[in-house]
């Protein structure tokens, strides 16, 4: 049925009524583009805020008067940890000047502080995947011999968590709305283009075509147009993405941001393409079937 009638007829239909095909494809492409843009924006906001806003620097304050060997052993232990990135040792002098830097205008306050009172510290960051486990990791290092206090910005972490929560909730709500709008647009444009081909469907039915044969050519047509729309939208999204990343990287202030952006991964695109094609086919099938029930009374 599909090979003898549906596929050739569906493709022929696209060719012979190429104007309507172009209009439908562009509607679908634009809807996919809107959807893709929404999802991409959301993914990047969550991704980048997860990386950037999370200040997960952990400071291990080593015991006062710790031996140089022990210090070295702790440092090596830290560096060997796969959860850890960017581990560095900070001497009391460096620590003091860093603190002065942090205080900014208030740096005058540090004048009375004696570096001899300060401990050596080891500062490190956690890899993105391990950031959720910061508490456990901190506790683990706190129990280590030679480590006095373990410090990390617990409060800042809470803020980031809240930010992510709000962003995700609001973002997902909006994405749900966009998906709904998208489905509305695609289904109504399918209905609109089929509505005008009621004649054709009636004629096919009158010459003895079964429902599934009639639907087959429309399913092929719907799948092709939807797939084409998806690919066009993907092209638009990709070009937009490249433009934005290029603009971000070009500006030194945002170049690090630009390098952290995401495009849709391939393992997401292939199922999405398949879904788009199926969606087009299913939409056409449903519309045609509904129309046929109407025609047959």
């Amino acid at each position: 049925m599909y090979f003898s009638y549906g596929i050739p007829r569906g493709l022929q239909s696209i060719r012979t009524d190429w104007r309507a095909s172009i209009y439908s494809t562009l509607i679908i492409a634009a809807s996919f583009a809107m959807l893709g843009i929404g999802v991409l924006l959301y993914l990047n906001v969550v991704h980048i805020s997860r990386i950037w806003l999370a200040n997960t620097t952990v400071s291990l304050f080593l015991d006062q008067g710790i031996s140089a060997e022990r210090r070295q052993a702790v440092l090596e232990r830290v560096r060997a940890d796969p959860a850890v990135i960017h581990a560095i040792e900070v001497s009391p002098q460096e620590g003091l000047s860093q603190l002065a830097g942090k205080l900014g205008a208030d740096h005058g306050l540090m004048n009375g502080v004696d570096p001899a009172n300060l401990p050596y510290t080891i500062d490190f960051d956690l890899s993105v995947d391990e950031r959720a486990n910061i508490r456990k990791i901190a506790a683990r290092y706190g129990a280590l011999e030679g480590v006095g206090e373990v410090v990390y910005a617990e409060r800042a972490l809470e803020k980031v968590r809240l930010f992510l929560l709000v962003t995700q909730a609001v973002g997902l709500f909006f994405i749900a709305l966009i998906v709904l709008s998208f489905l509305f647009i695609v289904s109504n444009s399918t209905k609109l283009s089929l509505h005008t081909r009621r004649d054709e469907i009636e004629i096919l039915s009158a010459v003895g075509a079964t429902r599934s044969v009639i639907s087959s050519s429309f399913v092929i047509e719907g799948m092709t147009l939807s797939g084409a729309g998806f690919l066009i939208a993907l092209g638009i999204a990709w070009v937009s993405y490249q433009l934005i990343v290029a603009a971000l990287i070009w500006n030194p202030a945002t170049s690090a941001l630009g390098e952290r952006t995401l495009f849709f991964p391939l393992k997401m695109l292939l199922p999405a393409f398949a879904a788009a094609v199926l969606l087009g086919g299913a939409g056409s099938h449903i519309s045609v079937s509904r129309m046929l029930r109407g025609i047959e009374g």
Partner: protein
Amino acid sequence: MIEFDGVSKSYLGMRPVLENVVLRVKRGDFLYLTGVSGAGKTTVFKLLMLLERPTAGTIKLNGAEVTALDSRQTAFHRRRIGMVFQDYRLLPRLSIEENVALPLRVAGLPRVQVRKRTAECLRWVGLEERRQELVQVLSGGEQQLVAISRAMAFDPPVVLADEPTGNLDQNMAHTVMSLLQRINQRGTTVIVATHDLHLIRSFRARTLLIKDRAIHEVRLVDHPDSPFSPEAERSLGAVPTG
């Protein structure tokens, strides 16, 4: 073969078109269905094709009740009837050939067979040379020939021709009527709906008249100008010819 029993039809919210119609057509019959404009000729064909459902009564084809058919059976039922629609019902953006091939293709016939049969049907109406042309650019008469050709494509046991010569010149009309007679001689049941008394005069056959929502048999008389009794002639609203 075709049996209408007590068939009534009224379109939604309109006065009835047919009331308690009884009709018997035997396999291999050739007959005319006539009546004034709006009498219900097309309606009878549509009922038989299941394009409309009767308000009351039963319609049988080969003893099987057609109104009881489900969607799939309806499709197979329609393949047993070739209909020439009064308004042709062609797909304008397809070529002549593709339109004629349509019933064969949707039935899933192999490509070679479709091509062979299509060529044959087009030869009968003299369109095989022009088979690539789009239907939408054809003249009225040419479209009618395509519609006739398509109705024959399946070689169906029943052919319903609704005003098949209304847009044809006399020569072409003669060809088409001869064609219908020829397939009838091979066993096909043929019903021609027409109000063209000259046609009936040239190709005499059993004639049914729809009048006052019922179907009547018309008595044929042996008169060179009119095949009908004066009474039937009057019901048809015919003006005296010649």
